[in-house]
């Protein structure tokens, strides 16, 4: 029947052909099955492939779904509150293809009318040149672009470009740094985080607080003017995390057009200076922690000390026996040297090694000054270092070291990134009890000693003044007395320190208001006071009643000579 059916169709040549083939082969069915199976396999394969492409490897997040940050060439830099410190803006740059221009003279005239800063002759020269491509003006505003479009010129075109913008200009220049035209970081965070900013495309959060940074800079700018100082630097740091809240170095520069020279130099991290009496904090910490000196003791400060031909005097001598707290509050060199001598040269060297003053700091901005310390440490070195001469460290090392002295004795690495300190644990360098004693001494200095001008009542400030004589760069001798660095380090509130400030003026001059004095207490002191009073409310530090019994008890210190029971706070 099958054969009859095929044969009965006279039009079907194919079927006849198949029929003949089937007749000639020994078994007709397997060949037919083979074809069917092959086709089925092919379709199954296609089906699987379709399933694979459409369902399994379908990713809704690829290709088109890019975020704005992946479009930008470089990630933003933000402050701790999310305010933008550096960002990229898409701008348009104007270029011309001179061979496409119809009337180069007219075009030059029209463009020079729009941009008074473009010289007509120069423009015309560019437009009539034989080059295939000439830049006319980079980074236009949208309005400028619109105006050029309205001119209807043939042969001028726009190129989309990205420009690095710093909304706060000078304010963050030293920390954030700057980039070159191609968006490559050349200094500060921009340089150190070059890779991260370009690859991760996520905003980088700094620990700095824009508002506090401004407060510090504003106070320093006015202080620098008032005291006619050459340079100024200031910092605010969180004593419990090591996060930098503010870091200002004056003179500064505009990161959009960085100058070369002195302004680029970040004095806080790169400069190393002899810190003068500020170092007495460390000498006291070292002596009290060694238990070789106690707060009830005292030293005879009536006679200058002599080391060979070297004489150590007090800046404003009391010429009498001084108790240990008095040595600190009146900043007596003689008393301090005697304390350091009790600990000895080896002890001092170990102490400075422990708080990291013999090595450069490691920070996120890469540029850090190398401290200077004596190669061979003799007794005379121990003596001068105890009150801040013969050893030079960076201001950042000082603020970080003093933070460890007041926060309960824990030294951490300073950081400029928010919530990212990998040294949060830190290491203990002095006992909590010693730290507590130092807090009382520092508060006493602000209340009754050399630091009264830095007191911001209500915030329980504690601090230490320093006025370091400057060395002549060439002769390496100390120059005239009126050329010095005036420094003030302060922490607040002293019963539970939260923040620490550092202010340094380079070569300040006294004014009639300071009765001609230009020392740390008189010049850097009032600046510190202003910074604390303005910044503390922003930083969430509540003022306390300094006369309350609780605070009185926490800050009590017996300072009277010869241990008579008279307590003064």
């Amino acid at each position, binding site marked *: 029947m099958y054969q009859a*059916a095929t044969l009965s169709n006279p039009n079907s040549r194919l079927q006849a052909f198949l029929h003949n083939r089937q007749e000639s082969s020994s078994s007709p069915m397997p060949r037919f099955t083979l074809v069917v199976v092959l086709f089925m396999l092919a379709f199954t394969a296609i089906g699987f492939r379709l399933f694979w492409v459409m369902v399994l490897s379908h990713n809704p997040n690829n290709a088109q779904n890019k975020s704005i940050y992946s479009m930008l060439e470089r990630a933003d830099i933000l402050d701790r509150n999310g305010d*933008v410190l550096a960002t990229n803006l898409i701008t348009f740059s104007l270029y011309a293809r001179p061979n496409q221009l119809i009337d180069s003279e007219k075009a030059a005239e029209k463009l020079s009318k729009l941009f008074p800063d473009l010289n007509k002759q120069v423009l015309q020269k560019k437009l009539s040149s034989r080059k295939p491509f000439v830049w006319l003006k980079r980074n236009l505003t949208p309005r400028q672009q619109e105006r050029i479009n309205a001119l209807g010129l043939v042969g001028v075109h726009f190129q989309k470009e990205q420009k690095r913008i710093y909304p706060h200009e000078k304010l963050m220049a030293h920390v954030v740094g700057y980039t070159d035209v191609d968006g490559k970081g050349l200094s500060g965070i921009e340089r150190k985080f070059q890779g991260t900013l370009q690859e991760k495309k996520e905003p980088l959060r700094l620990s700095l607080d824009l508002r506090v940074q401004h407060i510090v800079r504003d106070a320093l700018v006015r202080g620098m003017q008032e005291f006619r100082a050459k340079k100024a630097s200031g910092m605010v740091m969180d004593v419990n995390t090591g996060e930098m809240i503010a870091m200002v170095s004056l003179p500064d520069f505009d990161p959009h057009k960085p100058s070369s020279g002195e302004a680029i130099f970040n004095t806080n991290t790169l400069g190393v200076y002899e810190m003068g009496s500020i170092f007495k904090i460390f000498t006291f910490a070292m002596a009290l922690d060694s238990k070789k000196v106690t707060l009830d003791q005292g030293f005879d400060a009536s006679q200058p000390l002599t080391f060979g031909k070297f004489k150590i005097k007090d800046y404003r001598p009391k010429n009498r026996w001084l108790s240990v707290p008095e040595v600190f509050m009146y900043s007596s060199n003689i008393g301090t040297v005697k304390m350091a001598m009790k600990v000895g040269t080896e002890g001092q060297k170990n102490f400075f090694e422990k708080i990291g003053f013999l090595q450069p700091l490691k920070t996120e901005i890469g540029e850090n000054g190398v401290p200077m310390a004596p190669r061979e440490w003799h007794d005379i070195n121990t003596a001068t270092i105890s009150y801040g001469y013969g050893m030079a460290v960076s201001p950042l090392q000082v603020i970080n070291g003093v933070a460890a002295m007041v926060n309960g004795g824990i030294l951490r690495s300073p950081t400029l990134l928010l919530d990212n300190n990998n040294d949060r644990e830190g290491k203990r360098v002095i006992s909590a009890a010693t730290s507590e004693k130092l807090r009382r001494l520092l508060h006493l200095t602000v209340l009754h000693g050399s630091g009264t001008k830095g007191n*911001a009542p209500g915030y329980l400030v504690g601090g230490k003044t320093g006025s370091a004589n400057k060395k002549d760069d060439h002769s390496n001798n100390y120059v005239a007395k009126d050329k010095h660095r005036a420094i003030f380090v302060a922490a607040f509130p002293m019963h539970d320190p939260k923040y620490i400030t550092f202010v340094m003026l380079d070569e300040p001059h006294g004014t009639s208001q300071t009765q001609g004095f230009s020392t740390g207490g008189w010049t850097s002191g009032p600046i510190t006071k202003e910074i604390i009073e303005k910044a503390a409310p922003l930083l969430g530090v509540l003022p306390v009643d300094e006369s309350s019994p609780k605070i009185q008890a926490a800050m009590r210190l017996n300072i009277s000579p010869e241990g008579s029971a008279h307590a003064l706070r």
Partner: protein
Amino acid sequence: MQINYPLLRRSSLFALIASFFLGIGLYHLKHKVATVERDLRHTRTRIMEINESLHILRAEWGFLNNPHRLQKLNEQYLHLKPVNAKQISSLEGMNDERMKGSKK
């Protein structure tokens, strides 16, 4: 003429009709997907554009919030002064013995 061709068997007829309707269905689906995808592309472009303007606005906001500028504006129009420590008090301070004494 015999009509017993294998092609016109009932199942084949069913397949033919089914493929016809499936073809129509598929065409509609494809069309719909194309429309939805165009919409999606459009929406994504819009999102991108809005994000871009947001980014620019944020930069502009940064410029407007420049503390130096704000301080100048304050000096010019508002004359606000920084908070003084004496203006802030705590509830704990209210409970102080000396405060009670002054009330008497």
